[in-house]
């Protein structure tokens, strides 16, 4: 039982294959979408009252600069070569800014918001779910099942609207948008940090409430199948403390599928939750992806989706490799 070198090598090879296939799809799909990103650039110039006399020349120059006039196979080879260096080139819509620079600015906001809310939702939701299935839980806890179902069913952006209405407009407890107080300048880093937390409260709450419900229901399902196990009965017969039985014997065994789901969820956080970020004008990767799609900026789309692919594939790889450490019963030895 356990991890073998052969399995690790095979798993790594699979990882590379998955990343290559998705990178290829990532290269092709934006190019198949209708609309030329250069057209969006010219549209912006016109909206600034400029008279344009040479649209064709401008577009041709940009296409040359971005290598879009080269044959598709040549573009593909250059794209793969650049990917190995995590270089995506200049953004089409925000030229002369580089795609990696733009993503690097947005990423901390998304990671900060979603990593925190995902982990918190996982911890709280899993514990709540376990309690929902535990026979010795207080009755009022078990009455929270419908609440968890409602929370899971309502999408985060609808919760966001409700929270905005209640806590930003009707009772202005939290700010409705942005990441810092308007006009804040020259403050200490800790002060800025607290301000960012305060401004992130509503988007975080919208995501957290959705997450808690979903994790709770998932964990409850796992826990139900664990509750009737013989080893739990033995633990009780041995007179172990109830909390120890709950956490070390019950949750510990029920949580494995949740951990897999958590790994995938953490992989997805890099792209943010676009709708929530749009509603709160939160400068994260989700909002960036949305704007890149409407601008048909395929350099940015490629950068963001590649990052997603890499993150999810990496998390899946890590969880596969860590599983035997979490559950000694699992092994990858070939028989």
């Amino acid at each position, binding site marked *: 039982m356990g*991890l*073998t*070198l052969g399995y690790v090598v095979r798993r790594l090879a699979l990882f590379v294959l998955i990343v290559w296939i998705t990178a290829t799809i990532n290269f092709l799909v934006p190019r198949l*979408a*209708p*609309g*030329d*990103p250069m*057209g*969006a*650039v*010219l*549209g*912006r*110039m*016109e909206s*600034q*009252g*400029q*008279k*344009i*006399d*040479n*649209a*064709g*020349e*401008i577009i041709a*120059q*940009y296409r040359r*600069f971005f290598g879009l006039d080269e044959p598709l196979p040549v573009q593909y080879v250059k794209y793969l070569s650049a990917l190995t*260096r995590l*270089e995506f080139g200049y953004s089409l819509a*925000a030229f*002369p*800014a580089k795609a*990696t*620079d733009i993503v*690097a*600015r947005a990423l901390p906001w998304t990671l900060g918001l979603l990593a925190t809310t995902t982990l918190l939702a996982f911890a709280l939701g899993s514990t709540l779910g376990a309690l929902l299935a535990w026979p010795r839980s207080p009755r009022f806890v078990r009455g929270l099942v419908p609440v968890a179902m409602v929370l899971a069913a309502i999408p985060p952006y609808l919760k966001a609207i409700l929270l*905005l209405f209640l806590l930003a*407009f009707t009772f202005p407890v939290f700010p*409705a*948008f*942005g*990441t*810092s107080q*308007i*006009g804040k*300048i*020259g403050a200490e880093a800790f002060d800025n940090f607290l301000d960012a937390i305060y401004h992130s409260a509503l988007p975080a709450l919208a995501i957290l409430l959705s997450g808690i419900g979903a994790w709770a229901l998932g964990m409850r399902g796992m826990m139900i199948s664990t509750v009737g196990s013989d080893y739990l009965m033995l633990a009780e017969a041995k007179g172990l403390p109830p909390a120890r039985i709950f956490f070390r014997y019950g949750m510990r065994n029920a949580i494995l599928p949740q951990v897999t789901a958590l790994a995938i969820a953490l992989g997805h956080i890099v792209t943010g939750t676009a709708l929530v970020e*749009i509603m709160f*004008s939160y*400068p994260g990767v989700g*909002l*960036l992806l949305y704007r890149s799609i*409407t*601008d*048909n900026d395929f350099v940015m789309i490629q950068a963001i989706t590649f990052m997603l692919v890499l993150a999810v594939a990496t998390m899946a790889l890590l969880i596969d*490799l860590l599983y035997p450490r979490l559950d000694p019963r699992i092994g990858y*030895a070939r028989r």
Partner: protein
Amino acid sequence: MSGYLSRRAFLTSFACAGAVALAACSNALPAVPTRAPDSAKPAGEPTRPPAATSPAEAAQPPATAHPAAAPGVVAKSTGNVPRNKTLIMGFEGGPVTPPDQMNPNVPNARNSFGLHQTMIESLWYLNYENGQMIPWLGESYEFNKDFTQVTIKLRRGVTWSDGQPFSARDVVFTTNMLKEAGPNLSYGPLMKKYVAGVRAVNDNVVEFNLTTPYPRFLLDNFAVHIWGAVRILPEHIWKGQDPNTFNNYDPTRDWPVFTGPYRLVKASETEFIFDRRDDWWGKTTGFKELPAPERIIFVDQGSQDRRVALLQNNEVDALPQINAGPFQTALARNNNLIGWTDGKPWSWIDPCPTRMVFNNAAPPWNDPDIHWALNYGLDKLKYIEVGSEGLLGKEALSRFVFPDYPTLRALLDKNQDLFDKVGINEYNPQKAKDRLASKGYKPDADGILIGPNGKRFEATMVTQSAAEGQNMAPLNLIAEQYKSVGLDVNVKQLSGAARNEAVFTGDFDLLPYHNCGGVVDPFGTLDIYNSRYFAPKGERLQGGNQFNTPRWKSPKSEEFSKLADQVGLLAPGDPNIEPLFRQALDIWLQELPNFPLQQQFRIVPYNTTYWTNFPTAKNNYIHPPNWWMTTLMIIMNVKPR
């Protein structure tokens, strides 16, 4: 046991792999340079540009990026400024990405997050309210007789924010840079096409020699005709920089450097802060007093809901736009809010009215009878009422594709007989049906017409998508009304780049679209229908989406174009323009390449809780857009409450 990884081996290899990955990532992500301490820069010493990349390397990524500090870094901590000395405005277009892009000429430059309102000054500012050009950095100008040369006298005593003098050399440098830098810089193609040569006669006189007679050269390019104008750049900073990639941002050196009364102190995706420069040249020369706001903050105005929150909570003093419903909601909670007019519709007329464009490059959409039939077949008043949710009525009707501004209105009034003869805003479905019947169209069992070629009378109408905020109700009304006269309309919603592409390549039959042309003079509008901008369906329009969007080319359009060209050779206000315009209008009304839909009304809300003397219809010292370069005129006039 062979083949198995021990816990120690696994953890060791995992740690090594993680270290390698981190090292790779640190190379891939851009380094954030540290900021030089303020004490490193001696007071009063002029800034020097960094090592430059040559213009020839424009096609290659620069080897070293300009060492700008990360946005959000404060150049100098200026402390708090009380709310009643701070003017807060919204900017449109969403978060600015990247926020450290201060090159105003690259095509993606946003500029309206405060950069061109507070820091960049124009040579002149066109005032829509009286049609006059307000002299600012430029003091006076003189054209030669045939409008092939213009001499500009610049105001004396103007300085850049770093103390260097502003002079004719900067104007010459900027013009030549735009000419030579390639086709994609803002105003670059225009300078290349129209400027044969430019020279500094002395420190404050510039002489432009033009390639062709161009009486509107200054109006179109240096007077904020619509939104912006040529941005004069400091030669001592930009010389040697690649104008296509230089981002012009370094808070450690107080860059960007411009002549305006404010300097940038904070830049982030959703907020830009500008502090007043008490050493602004306008004050030191006695030209103007310092503007009252000590600090100006521009914030992302966001969604309509957010605009309501910003206004009702007094978190902003001005926004670029808000819809009628949200404005009324905000007004109910904050009665210090004002629009351009005292009561409904609170709106100002945008310079770009809307029109229904036909694709004249594809039959049957090149047939004037079809154009007139569809003009009569649409109840424009109902269209306006539905689109404005009852806020607007006949005041939004448009006789021609001019914005309803005083000088243009007067011109149309003189030709009212032409409009009366054709009934441009007449709603008469029977007349529409009769016109179509006269062309051989007959209804089928469903009431949809079958053309003389045996085909169904169908049209694809390309519109902006509802996801981007387009109100679909009036567009669905168009489809419904056209169906009743026998035309089956397929409303095709497209977003962003896809819609632009459809307009660019003529992939539509009908297109509700804006028309940005003249604002004080008819030439700008006549020129956009010039047949020289024609492109067949499937080919890109060379003049961008505004020029000959309806792809109008016919014997009559050639006549029209000649008249438009003749108007172009006359200075604005020349009395000879009127008879030429009348002839051109007559042709346009005969062919109707597109018909006017409505004036564009826009609520530009201001909040008088902390500041007063914003522009209104009664106090119309300037037009109200606070996202244009002319915002500086507003800033110079606002007073604390």
